[in-house]
């Protein structure tokens, strides 16, 4: 059996998670201190990929990255294109994974008592250090949860990937795409194998997260008991 969908899926999901992690945390950090009028509009914009149908995202990404799209033309100037390439699978997966990372991180940041940050400020601690040494450690469980959710979502991405990256075996064919085309061509047994594979990976990620959370809770409880 051709294993390339597995490697492509894992590579894509990992790369997309890294991108969603960096952008999601940055956006969440910016939004947690932003008090402007556009807050709810921006928040809605960041959440949008979560609620839009993947085909709509795929369409919008095609418009952006297509030959006549603004980003497509920019990339053409650099002598490259992303459509129907492995990068396209990463972009599509990152876009759908981003809202989960952003929203979970924002929720976690907002849970941090603002007095703690103010206390650090009056002690002369620079903002960047406050973020790294106080906000992030205290929001860590939320950040980990967001990362795993983002990874699972990136792994399962289908619609936008198909539209932006196509179904090129060995290059852009991820497990979800392989399943779809195997079923379409009547090879249900082979599709079932991939189904099992993706269930296993997703389940491992989610239960791993639960296990880690429970252990964190236990350590905390142990510390509390003294």
């Amino acid at each position: 059996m051709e294993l390339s969908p597995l490697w492509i899926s894992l590579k894509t999901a990992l790369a997309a998670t890294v991108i969603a992690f960096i952008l999601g945390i940055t956006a969440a950090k910016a939004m947690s201190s932003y008090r402007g009028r556009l807050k709810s509009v921006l928040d809605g914009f960041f959440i949008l990929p979560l609620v839009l149908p993947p085909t709509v995202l795929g369409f919008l990404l095609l418009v952006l990255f297509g030959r006549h799209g603004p980003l497509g033309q920019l990339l053409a100037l650099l002598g490259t294109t992303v459509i129907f390439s492995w990068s396209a699978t990463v972009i599509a997966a990152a876009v759908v994974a981003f809202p989960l990372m952003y929203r979970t991180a924002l929720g976690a940041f907002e849970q941090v008592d603002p007095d703690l940050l103010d206390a650090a400020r009056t002690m002369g601690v620079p903002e960047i250090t406050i973020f790294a040494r106080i906000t992030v450690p205290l929001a860590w469980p939320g950040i980990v949860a967001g990362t795993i959710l983002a990874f699972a979502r990136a792994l399962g991405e289908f619609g936008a990937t198909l539209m932006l990256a196509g179904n090129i075996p060995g290059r852009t064919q991820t497990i979800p795409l392989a399943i779809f085309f195997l079923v379409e061509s009547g090879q249900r047994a082979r599709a079932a194998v991939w189904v099992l594979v993706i269930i296993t990976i997703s389940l491992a990620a989610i239960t791993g997260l639960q296990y880690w959370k429970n252990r964190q809770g236990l350590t905390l409880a142990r510390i509390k008991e003294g």
Partner: protein
Amino acid sequence: MNLSVQIKKKFPGFQLDVSFNAPAGMLGLLGPSGSGKSMTLRCIAGLQKPDKGRISIGEQVLFDSEQGINLPPQWRKIGFLFQNYALFPHLTVTGNIAMGLRGLQEKEQKKIIRETLALVKLEALAKRYPHQLSGGQQQRVALARALAPRPRVLLLDEPFSALDNHLRGEMEQVLASLLSTFPGTAVFVTHKLDEAYRLCPELLVLENGRVNAVGPREAIFNNPPNLAAARMMGCQNLSKIRLHSDGTVEALDWGCLLHFPAERIKAEAGHVGIYGNHIRLGGKNDKINLMDCQVLEVTESPHHVTIKVKSVNGTWDNQGCITIDWPKEKWGQLCLPKDQLLKLSLPPERLFLTWD
């Protein structure tokens, strides 16, 4: 070094307009909740930006709306003690204190941490986490943490409000002894008169975002300049007055004529007041400032008795009531027969006049 504050800040339905000068030493900021005490502290620390005004420590300007100066809290060197301590829950006691010493070399850091922990007598708990400490211990860590970076000004926002009563007295002493060696200005915010009076030689009374009274505690307590300050000082007995040309004062709510030392008459004063514990039982030799009163209600506390009375000539509303605080023994010895009037004497030297 002198802390000088003149700030204005507008909120929906509330305006903060506070100015004062505080030399080194302890200043008590006293006011009911919602009077703008905490907001004033936050403005001084740089955690909130006033709309207008100026804040300076000695020669250094921290905030000046006209010159466009607004130093971030990190540069102000102002220690802040939060109501709920705001200890970093994921760091040990040492980690909490070290957070404010990050610019220093490790050796220097360790030395300061050791010194500060010794100061608050917490050496044994250096490796504990905040949730492993009692309320009083957490408070001491918060204090150590605020003092470690050697601030020029220390702001304390209702530091005892989260403590049990018996811990409060203990922490008050810890604070008093620590601050006796603190070289700068300490501003202590509270809504409790007792706390402020015990700890702070200088008081500032805030009401509704404005400064109502400022000065040495005895002066404000013995002679509150206005009604709000008198109430904040715990004076329950205040009556509207009419000043007579012969120097007597007619207490309208109490329905009696009061003699008053001429030098303490204030022009255009609107009220006369007396503290409940300054009211005496009228004796045979008393000729002036006597009042026949009917006892309405007696409430016993562990150490004293609160007697609510009404002057027979006074008005029949709340203002007409007089509240007396007497030690329990005194009330016990009195054995007042039921329905008999109580003859009270309001000593002239204990009465004060206030503006409205």
